């Protein structure tokens, strides 16, 4: 089976003034279709850079990123936009719903860019909202909903176009623990229904929801393995302690 996400020695460098920042430094990893992977790291570890590259919002400086076998680095802006629309569903920490659109319209946005007819859009959006149990809030505005409800709308928006990969960036960062559990439960459901789920977080207790953890530190992979292995947490903590001491 070919990997759906495949990093070959991916590096991302930024020039900030005189210093060269290596946000990602020689990262290689393979994620198979249907996996639930958490990319974990503290701020500055390179996890956001990884997410941007996986999400086709950015391209590597060095190395190759193959998405479903296709080298993303060679694509132009329009092709990247098309791939984001077709292959990826984004879930953000701040929900990022469009405040002037209703719940239903928000979920329809990616479908509209996919070129679906009005009727098709409506139907798919309704199905997605049904899955997150928000069928009764179709014509509400986002600011009329609670944080958990808004995040469920954004999950519905991410899955409405039935993309292969769901990319969740700190999806529980702004939620209380109970709603966080609901949201993580939804992500697990998505995995069961066949999606590849990539969860980006700094929080170990959230990361263990995934089957596999990829831990980043200073732009490098320091752990890649099962989430229930003792090293998944232990290593990280020793590094974190080391980090705070230095």
């Amino acid at each position, binding site marked *: 089976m070919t990997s759906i996400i495949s990093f070959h020695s991916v590096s991302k460098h930024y020039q900030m003034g005189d210093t060269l920042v290596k946000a990602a430094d020689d990262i290689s990893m393979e994620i198979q279709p249907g996996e639930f992977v958490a990319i974990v790291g503290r701020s500055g570890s390179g996890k956001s850079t990884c997410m941007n590259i996986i999400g086709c919002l950015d391209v590597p400086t060095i190395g190759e990123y193959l998405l479903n076998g296709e080298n993303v680095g060679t694509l132009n802006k329009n092709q990247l936009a098309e791939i984001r629309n077709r292959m990826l569903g984004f879930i953000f920490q701040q929900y*990022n719903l469009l405040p002037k659109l209703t719940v239903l319209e928000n979920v329809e946005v990616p479908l*509209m860019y996919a070129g679906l007819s009005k009727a098709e859009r409506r139907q798919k959006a309704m199905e997605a909202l049904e899955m997150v149990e928000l069928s009764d809030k179709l014509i509400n505005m986002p600011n009329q909903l609670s944080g958990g409800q808004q995040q469920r709308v954004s999950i519905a928006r991410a899955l409405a176009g039935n993309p292969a990969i769901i990319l969740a960036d700190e999806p529980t960062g702004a939620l209380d623990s109970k709603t966080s559990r609901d949201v993580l439960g939804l992500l697990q459901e998505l995995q069961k229904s066949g999606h590849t789920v990539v969860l980006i977080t700094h929080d170990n207790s959230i990361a263990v929801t995934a089957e596999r953890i990829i831990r980043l530190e200073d732009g490098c992979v320091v752990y890649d393995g099962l989430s229930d292995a003792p090293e998944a947490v232990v290593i990280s903590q020793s590094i974190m302690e080391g980090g705070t001491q230095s």
Partner: protein
Amino acid sequence: MKIGESIHQALKNIVSSKMRAFLTMLGIIIGIAAVMVIVGFGNGMENYMKDQFESMGTNTLTVTINGRGSSRSVSEDDMYQIVEDNSEYLDKISPTVSVSSTVKIDTETLDSTSVTGVNEEYFSIKDYGISDGRALQYLDMVNRQRVCVVGAYIAQEYYADDAVGQKIRIGGNKFTIIGVLNQQVDEMEEGSTDDMILLPYTTAARVLSAGTISNYTIMLTSEDFETDGKAAIEDALYSIFESEDAYRITSMSEMLEMMTSMTNIIIAIMTAIAGISLLVGGIGIMNIMLVSVTERTREIGIRKALGAKERFIMTQFVIESAVISAMGGLIGIAAGYGISAIATQVVGAVLDVSMTIVPSAASVVIAFGISVAIGILFGYLPAKKASRLNPIDALRYE
């Protein structure tokens, strides 16, 4: 994404900030309304002048003889002969002798009254009817009678409509009023066509020493023969004077054309000035769209993450700016009609002129087209800026 949906979204955005949208439109509204009123004003003026000239008769030519030294001259009999020779084109002729002598009724001096010496044909050339008494006749010319026909204004103002048989003093000579003309214009007043005295040209030339007869009004058999008639007179006069400078022939339609082209220049200048308001309005739209792009940076980032291509973002902003501008255009068109209607009333009341200010249908269509074009033109730069935003930066924007 369909255009219709983009327009729908743009309208939603505009409705959500009505005040700002309205203020943004204001420049376009004022510009479009101003252009429409000015164009309407031009049309009204042109029509008004056309009416005025038509009432004076577009089928007449005016001939002015300047002469050439003392050796060559043209008498009125020569002129009559020219008309007779070209009866195919030329119908009637009357000398017109302007008299500058003072006019007095009892002790009162009439300053604004125009006094002209004419022959008996003049009445039919000008289509002047007689409401009381009689018109001038051939015998009045031959005998140099000291008689005159007065306009309705004089009859009403000084004689209480009982002018016939009364005396009037012109240049110290007593004249008997033998007739009163029909009222010519709606509002009689000093200096109007109704404030006029017509007397035999022979009397005017000799008794009042108004000098030689140098002006003639000639009526064409038909408006269509204007060019032919003019050419015939030119030929005849050239054979006498052998110089083109010795005479001048003017037709009413030529004068109308001249006046029209003059008003057109004025209207064009005024339209250009009003057009500046459209330019300023366009810049206002560009400014507010740039602000809007900054405000909606995050929205743009989200849309891009969800798969919007640059073209979609671009279209969305251009259409929004075009819709704002087009709405401004529509309001401006409505305002233009309203102001034109009011201006028609005001001009009628203040200037005593019945001039209808109506924006032409073409100017409405053009105005709307221009407003949409301004929106697209000035929306392009902000839209380009929006479409070029980096989605990562845009998503991070607070």
